[in-house]
């Protein structure tokens, strides 16, 4: 997660860009020197994917229908700057604040969610967000106590403390609260094509679950900030 000291200013710029359509995203796909050969390969790739997969449990073949962002993020290289900006603007536009206006839940519940890597596979019974974990420790360090953590994402140990959040309810903390909520809701708002799942946007976690994860990261009492 990038440290964003000036989230409000960036947000304003991105909102200004948000009017650009989804079609523009597709146009941002990498082009090659051989468009005809590339198109033939596109067609055979599509046919191969269609023929190779089948439905199993909750994991249906419609999961292979890429949205514009997924398609733009599948080249293996970072998107061009203009494309990245469009993706970030469109992603930011999807972020909804919590309906009850509360951003922080219970950090202990957040820790449980962070530990859980469950959800959305063909061996899971339900695709409801209540059946899903946050998968956080798979990729991030969070607390000192849990040493079994992954490194695909940056360490989030002392996340709130390092960003000077002493009172999450204070106006001074608001930009960091908004940024962190946005990051959990749709990580691509701040980092186009990030590896991090878009938890709110894709309905992977509900508001309550995200509030618990917010507390895990930002509550000064959380084990993350000790």
């Amino acid at each position: 997660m990038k440290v964003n000291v000036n989230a409000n200013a960036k947000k304003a710029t991105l909102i200004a860009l948000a009017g650009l359509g989804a079609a523009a995203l597709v146009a941002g796909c990498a082009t090659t020197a051989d468009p005809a050969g590339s198109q033939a390969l596109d067609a055979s790739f599509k046919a191969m994917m269609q023929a190779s997969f089948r439905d199993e449990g909750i994991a249906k073949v419609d999961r292979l229908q890429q949205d514009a962002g997924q398609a733009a993020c599948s080249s293996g290289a970072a998107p061009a700057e203009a494309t990245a900006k469009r993706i970030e603007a469109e992603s930011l536009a999807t972020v909804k604040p919590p309906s009850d206006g509360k951003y922080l839940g219970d950090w202990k519940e957040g820790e449980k969610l962070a530990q859980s890597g469950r959800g959305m596979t063909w061996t899971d019974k339900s695709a409801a967000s209540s059946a899903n974990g946050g998968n956080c420790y798979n990729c991030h360090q969070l607390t000192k106590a849990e040493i079994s953590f992954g490194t695909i994402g940056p360490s989030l140990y002392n996340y709130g403390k390092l960003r000077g959040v002493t009172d999450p309810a204070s106006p001074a903390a608001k930009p960091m609260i908004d940024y962190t909520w946005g990051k959990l809701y749709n990580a691509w708002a701040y980092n186009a094509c990030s590896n991090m799942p878009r938890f709110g946007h894709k309905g992977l976690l509900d508001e309550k679950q995200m509030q618990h994860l917010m507390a895990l990261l930002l509550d000064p009492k959380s084990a993350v900030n000790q």
Partner: protein
Amino acid sequence: MKRIFLGMLGVALGLSVQAQTKSAADGIAEYRKMLEDGNPAELFEAKGEDLWKKKRGPKNASLEQCDLGKGPGVVKGAWVELPRWFADTRRVQDLESRLLTCMETLQGLNAAEIARTPFGKGEQVTMEALAAWISAESRGMKMALPQAHAEEQRMYQLGQRAFFFRGGPMDFACSTCHGEKDKRIRLQDLPDLRSNPGDGIGFAAWPAYRVSSGEMWSMQRRLNDCYRQQRFPYPGYASDVTIALGVYMGVNAKGAASIAPAIKR
């Protein structure tokens, strides 16, 4: 037996959990060493060799005339050159899809039915043992997939696309976990499969005996579980996407020494 292995693995990994200086891979390496004279994969290899030579199926024939790419009956060195183009089927095939062809043409078994059978059941048990033995016959040899045929090159390109293809509810691709150097999921080291990850790592380590489940996993099963964790739909056994990924990973691993069948956590 499984419990004993798990216990030993626990001992081997115990130190690494206390001291971060030692990675899970080191623990596994230590565990492998302890089992040098008794990798349980050997049991599967012996069974696989028997099954290769045994007369079976409606045609009551063995697989000894099966052409794995180096001529009928040549097993040694075949594994490190698969997947490759086969003129008789006019397809690029990996080990498992090629075995299905041989089982159907030589033995009269139903390939489609075997492909539909769940892992660990029925003829899939035969496939695991055959894959274990055939890969063991190339142990220590270097990965050397051919890329001369146009179809082999095309499958490499398709595999590369599949590798970076993001989809599903979590936007994952193969590259999410295997597209950067020196990354981990929890304590599990992840090979970077965009290039050669080194001797006995990634494509050069499967099939493998999985200690945690007490099972022999072929590359097909490994890829199947990758896609499960990617939150994708179910890839067909020996489907083209799995073969294309095999070409991509195998060609990238050119020159890496194969340790298959390896032993995994």
